[in-house]
């Protein structure tokens, strides 16, 4: 029953998938590049090249300390993507596990866990994250932890629906008749079949994580100035928008837009593929 991931769709070409994959690949490649090499030292300050507009030597110009914005954006993308990956990994794994158990077994465990998820969702997530980080203090790992927990319900909900639906399907019944235990059925039989639904959820969750990280860093409670993430750079850049450094915030904002656009298109493309059943 496994279905290969592919861009083939019944009907018109799935441009969402192709374009999204292309943008995401380019951004991912740049991020990987940024981990090993940047045109300039991202932290090097130089009073002689302060606040330069974009030019051949500095593609995105330089900031108020004379640091190369392109180099910092490359590095910042790494920080942002790392946080988002961790968040999606934590919330995806935990959410899927919770969704699987609650969806497959149902009963009072389902009720309790889902009401907890409802409670978490009832709060605006950024606001809740703000409160928690205000208590814990800012920092990369705290941001990852908080967002990772806050994003669990969205995955749990999707996974629960799929597991509850698949529970009554014939192939599951057959597996059960063959003597497979519930855990084996969940992991080996149902989980692979939830991919068409879970993958778009992951890509949307990833988007949300990028935005949430950027928003929190923008509000000053995200990562510290040492790990320059995109949100942090946007926050630094916005105060100079009116004061002769507009390209700082614009370039960083553009980078975030591209990142998110790539993943959104990818998610949309995945959704539009021919349904599994």
């Amino acid at each position, binding site marked *: 029953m496994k279905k290969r991931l592919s861009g083939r769709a019944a009907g018109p070409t799935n441009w969402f998938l192709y374009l999204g994959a292309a943008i995401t690949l380019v951004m991912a490649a740049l991020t990987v590049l940024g981990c090993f090499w940047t045109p300039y030292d991202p*932290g090097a300050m130089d009073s002689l090249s302060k606040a330069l507009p974009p030019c051949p030597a500095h593609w995105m110009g330089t900031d108020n300390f004379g640091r190369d914005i392109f180099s910092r954006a490359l590095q910042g993308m790494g920080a942002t993507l790392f946080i988002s990956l961790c968040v999606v990994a934590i919330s995806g794994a935990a959410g899927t596990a919770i969704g699987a158990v609650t969806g497959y077994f149902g009963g009072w465990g389902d009720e309790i866990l889902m009401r907890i998820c409802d409670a978490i969702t009832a709060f605006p997530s950024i606001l809740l994250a703000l409160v928690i980080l205000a208590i814990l203090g800012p920092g990369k790992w705290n941001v990852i932890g908080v967002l990772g927990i806050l994003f669990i319900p969205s995955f749990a909900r999707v996974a629960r629906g799929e597991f509850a639906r698949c529970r009554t399907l014939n192939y599951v019944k057959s597996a059960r008749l063959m003597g497979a235990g519930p855990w084996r059925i969940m992991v080996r039989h149902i989980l692979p079949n939830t991919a068409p639904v879970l993958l778009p959820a992951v890509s949307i969750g990833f988007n949300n994580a990028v*935005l949430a990280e950027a928003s929190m860093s923008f509000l000053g409670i995200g990562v510290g*100035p040492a790990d320059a993430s995109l949100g942090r750079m946007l926050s630094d850049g916005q105060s100079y928008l009116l004061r002769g450094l*507009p390209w700082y915030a614009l370039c960083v*904002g553009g980078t*975030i837009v591209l990142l998110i656009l790539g993943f959104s298109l990818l*998610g949309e493309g995945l959704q539009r593929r021919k349904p599994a059943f």
Partner: protein
Amino acid sequence: MRTRTLALFLSAAVMSTALCGCGGQGTAGTGSDGANTSQTGGEPPANELTVGIAQDLGDSLDPFTMTAAGTREILFNVYEGLYKPDASGDFIPALAEDCAISEDALTYTFTLRDGVQFHNGTAMDAEDVVYSFNTCAATSVDSSLSAALADLVSADVVDERTVAVTLAAPNSDFLAYVSSVYVVPDDYDGQTTAPVGTGPFRFVSRSVQENVILERFDRYWGEAAKVDKVTCKIYEDGNALMTALNGGAVDLVCHLTTSQVQGLGEQYQVLEGTMNLVQALYLNNAAAPFDDVRVRQALCYAVDVDAVLDLTADGHGTKLGSSMYPAFTKYFDDSLTDLYPHDPEKARALLAEAGYPDGFSMTITVPSNYTPHVDTALVLAEQLAAVGIQAQVVEVEWNTWLTDVYQGRNFETTVVGFDAANLTANALLQRWTSGAGKNMISFQSSEYDALLEQANAITDDGDRTSLFRQAERVLAEEAANVYIQDLADMVVINKSLTGFQFYPLYVLDLSQIAWTA
């Protein structure tokens, strides 16, 4: 799902486009200065002044319970004490004509100026002065002032024009505190909302989050103010203030940063003063490795203060070498600023000598709401990396900073600025004595303690000054902290205005400001 994608895309796009909007607005505002009455040249139609201020006078207008520096700054024009500070930091007789100090320096006899009137029309007499001293001692929220007044044995009416103030112990800074005891009428209880003092301007009205209006007080005892009316317009949002400046809607704005004053309209000129605070990389002298004087000196040599000024403020700001800023002309020792020239080699050598040949890791805790301090910390971290010290900048909330760093002393290093609550050397130096509760860095030096004790025990001004200067040198030589700068304070003022004066305190003297013909 398409709407979802769109929503995501939009929310991301908004982050940058919303900011674009601001940029456009700012640019459009430049050059449209038709609204400015003063542009016509010659005498403006109305002899009025519009001042842009960054915060409402929202706390209390009462002279003794007002807390915000921004409130004190404006009401400096409404209230006066028996003495008042002038722009050079001296105390000049105001409501008192003269002051006689007894031999034992315990009794101050003030002769009051004749014919002083309050803004509500009543005449000032000795009863009012005594009432003010007593009310101030009982209600003042300024801790150094109330501590000084706690030594007050009594304030007595000698006759209608004479007041005698008796102290329990000599206090050579007493006149500085007297200048903070604003004199108010003893039969008026509306100070919190409608202040009445004796100053060159009288309070007219305050509209919440909109403006505060002052008018010239025509029966002022001294030289009358030059303008008829001052409107302090409140711009709590920085962008709104910049838009107002670009549109020419205000004549005078203080406390701007170097980047804010760039690209303003032609009708303005920019004056540069100092913020009157000591910005430094404050080191926890009690924590390793900062308990080793060689490490502290190494940090001083590793830091290039000129580069800090260049990178954070385009070279503006005044270099400092000790816990004293240049507005205290008497106490400021210029030679200390070059005690530790930028010398990474020497820094490395000192570190090696102290047992850290490969440097070490440290944290710089900064309050996140103060951009200049955060910027300085970032530059310092970069400079320290050059001598092998890995400095991590940790931003914290102001309240966290107050509890953990200032009160808890739980930090390695921090970048902040300390100001002086009043015009005394003690306001800046007393805090570093070994037993002082405010000695956040736990600086311990018996030599320093002895110098301050000696200085405070004598009354001769010359000797005191030289003792205070010696104490500053001890701070510098012991490298108690890595002293950086007194931040630049940019003032934007209409070119047709004269008479703006920088004070060594956080006040705005409106009385001398005038339109040129």
